[in-house]
């Protein structure tokens, strides 16, 4: 039973990490290629969830909702890029932080205006409901396994896209030398729009998939955004591989911290205080991990830049 619990918790950490990876991949790609800090990335996550919930409610099909979430987040991403983000590439990080902070306010309130004040309903598709029994007697929800699978597939797809395709070559060129892609005869403007929309779509996908597990409500993107930043900073900004490793590290640290710290502390200082302090430490654990990593590797684990 005890091993089964540990395996289940590791799977939970993996699933959480994979979801963070979907968010972090877009963030790190946008930073790597365009040098942009995008605080509004969490808003695309929220938009994805709302689009999925609204379409699923209207059509009764989760899968249509999922497609809608990708489309809505990508489209909104492209619109935001063309109208706002494009003007920020040659600005310093400070202006980018302020502008995208403003975008959060705008997109959150606009979403609430459009979809109302109450959380929306979004459930997992019937095909993926319930739990299955894995080897070693582990009960695990099918839907969470599906999230892990999708996350891994997206990771593989991104790897292939960047390593094997023309678009990927341009993205890599853009990461190493922004002037060079101009010399390659690439239309930088549309490349940037494309990359931004791709990042937004990944966030939207994450929002839709997680929205089925959580509450589809305004502001849902913000905690995830902070975690995604933690992930890409740990992994090394601009590195997809770093984002992947960082996401799994954060996912597993957070999950295992929540499970293991309180009982460990209970053995040391007694159960009365342990649950509170343990929970506090567990909340802080990923930030402690991040500070430790950056203290020793100031550019993260796999920095793509310098």
């Amino acid at each position, binding site marked *: 039973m005890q091993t089964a619990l540990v395996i289940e918790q590791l799977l939970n950490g993996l699933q959480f990490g994979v979801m963070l990876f979907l968010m972090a991949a877009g963030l790190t790609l946008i930073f790597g290629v365009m040098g942009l800090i995008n605080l509004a990335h969490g808003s695309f996550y929220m938009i994805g969830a709302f689009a999925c919930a609204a379409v699923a409610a209207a059509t009764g099909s989760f899968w249509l909702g999922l497609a809608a979430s990708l489309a809505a987040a990508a489209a909104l991403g492209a619109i935001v890029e063309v109208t706002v983000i494009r003007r920020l590439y040659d600005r310093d990080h*400070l202006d980018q932080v302020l*502008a995208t902070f*403003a975008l959060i306010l705008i997109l959150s309130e606009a979403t609430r205006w459009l979809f109302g004040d109450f959380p929306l309903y979004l459930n997992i598709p019937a095909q993926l409901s319930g739990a299955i029994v894995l080897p070693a007697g582990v009960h695990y929800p099918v839907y969470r396994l599906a999230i892990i699978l999708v996350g891994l597939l997206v990771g593989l797809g991104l790897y292939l896209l960047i390593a094997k395709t023309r678009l990927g070559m341009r993205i890599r060129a853009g990461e190493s030398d922004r002037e060079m892609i101009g010399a390659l005869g690439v239309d930088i403007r549309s490349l940037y729009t494309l990359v931004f929309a791709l990042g937004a779509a990944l966030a939207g996908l994450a929002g839709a998939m997680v929205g089925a597990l959580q509450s589809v409500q305004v502001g849902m993107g913000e905690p995830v955004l*902070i975690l995604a930043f933690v992930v890409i900073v740990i992994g090394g900004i601009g590195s997809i591989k770093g984002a992947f490793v960082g996401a799994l590290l954060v996912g597993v640290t957070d999950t295992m911290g929540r499970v293991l710290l309180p009982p460990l502390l209970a053995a040391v200082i007694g159960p009365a205080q342990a649950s509170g302090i343990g929970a506090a430490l567990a*909340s*802080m654990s990923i930030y402690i991990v991040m*500070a430790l990593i*950056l203290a020793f590797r100031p550019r*993260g684990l796999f920095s793509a830049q310098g």
Partner: protein
Amino acid sequence: MNRETAFNLVLAAVLLAAPVIAFAANEPFYVALATRIAILALAAAGLNLALGFGGLVSFGHAAFFGIGGYVAGIFASHAMYSEPLPFGLPATDQMPVIWLVAALLCALAALPIGAISLRTTGVYFIMITLAFAQMIYYFAISWPAYGGEDGLSIPVRNSFVGLNTANALHFFLICYAVLMAALALTWRIRDSRFGMALQAARQNEVRLAAVGIRPFRIRLTAFVLSAVLTGLAGALFADLNRFASPSMMSWHMSGELIVLVILGGTGRLFGPVAGAILYVLLEYALGGMTERWQLFLGLILLGVVLFARGGVVGLVAGKARYD
């Protein structure tokens, strides 16, 4: 007198005159609003020292704001019941003592945070400062002794010799005086040798090292000073609201402080004052008009970044120049 100095004097005069007139007209709320502006300007002036002059984009200054706030709250609650503080220290409700303790604690916190964070640069610095602030935030939320997320009420505002802090105007004058003192300090530091080294570190740290000045020490000193000023603002803010809470430490607060600095004009002496006046008045006016006020606030902020580079001071006085 150049345009920027003239504009600064106007800002200082308006910020002083408006609440005095409001008080005379028996509108104490506008005195409180001006007090809020002065305190937020002080917090942003602290951040401006690191961010504006030193180029250190700290996304975690809310932590120091909150520490200052809790010092005021903890002193007030102990003084109220005449209980000694932790470590057997005597409790007092005298603001100068509280400010001193807040400044010391913020410096003590900023020293290790800065020392570790300054190993990184750019986005990494932004994010590692955020990480430290989040740690302190979660600690404050789960720490039951002083209210956790419920925060800590200050039943009676801390006191100041010779003044009645419960009087809105008296309290405003205290905050205004502290703000002006902090701005004077910032002004002196900006023009000093240290200030020159700090601004050089922002522009070109390799150059600074090549003339034998270590950027790290300069930056760390600036970071600590900056944290101290923001912490002082936190102590005043808690006294203003008669309340200290973890939300003073949330990442939204850090973001708001950055917004104040940029809105007013990054690295401009009175930028934080201009930013705080504009932001608080916007929040107040929009909040009174529509429940969608955050949407319009966002649109206005976006417009400022895109079309009014250099913030309010930049708009009025043009680009900063060094003689």
